[in-house]
């Protein structure tokens, strides 16, 4: 079975500061990894994904994430956040041998001016 842990339910940060949203996963097989974002009153949309190749993946809006197999982590980072980045961020994992996609409980990023 697979599971995803997002340890931080809320992350407050000031505008232009760097941010890291943590994601750890558990799986007995290799996985694909994803970050989705849900802006206020909107549906979820894909931010970035790791399928294979380079462990550093870049997504939309200046976000990037690094896959660390030994630490089973896929943390999301942005060097300088903007007010408009305020949203709920979900990490998700999918075992490579199925289409099942499991989401974490989400991290609410609140950016203050």
């Amino acid at each position, binding site marked *: 079975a697979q599971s995803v842990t*997002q340890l931080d339910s809320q992350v407050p940060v000031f505008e232009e500061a760097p941010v890291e949203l943590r994601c750890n996963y558990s799986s007995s097989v290799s996985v694909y990894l994803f970050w989705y974002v849900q802006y206020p009153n909107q549906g979820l949309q894909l931010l970035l994904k790791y399928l294979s190749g380079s462990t550093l993946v870049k997504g939309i809006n200046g976000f990037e994430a690094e896959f660390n197999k030994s630490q089973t982590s896929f943390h999301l980072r942005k060097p300088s956040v903007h007010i408009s980045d305020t949203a709920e961020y979900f990490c998700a994992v999918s075992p490579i041998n199925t*289409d099942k*996609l499991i*989401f974490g409980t989400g991290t609410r990023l609140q950016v203050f001016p």
Partner: protein
Amino acid sequence: GAGVSQSPSNKVTEKGKDVELRCDPISGHTALYWYRQSLGQGLEFLIYFQGNSAPDKSGLPSDRFSAERTGGSVSTLTIQRTQQEDSAVYLCASSLGRESPLHFGNGTRLTVT
């Protein structure tokens, strides 16, 4: 083009009644997912379909929950004898496969009184 459509958008029902939630995926999308989103609980995986078959039903909370998909298109999620703890937003998503982005519907907000 048309996105994922869910109906009804809101449903208020009395405890003990049955409800049926509908999802119209994007045309051509073979994979279809159902999730439940409750406050503070993130996205809870319920079931996914590949075509008309459901390889993994492990997320369904109880035998009161069932889902089907016909013609590789429309899917219905049925909850029998609803309970108050079933109150949540039920989200449907479709994709060409899990390597492709999931496209989410706006959800059905179910309230059981």
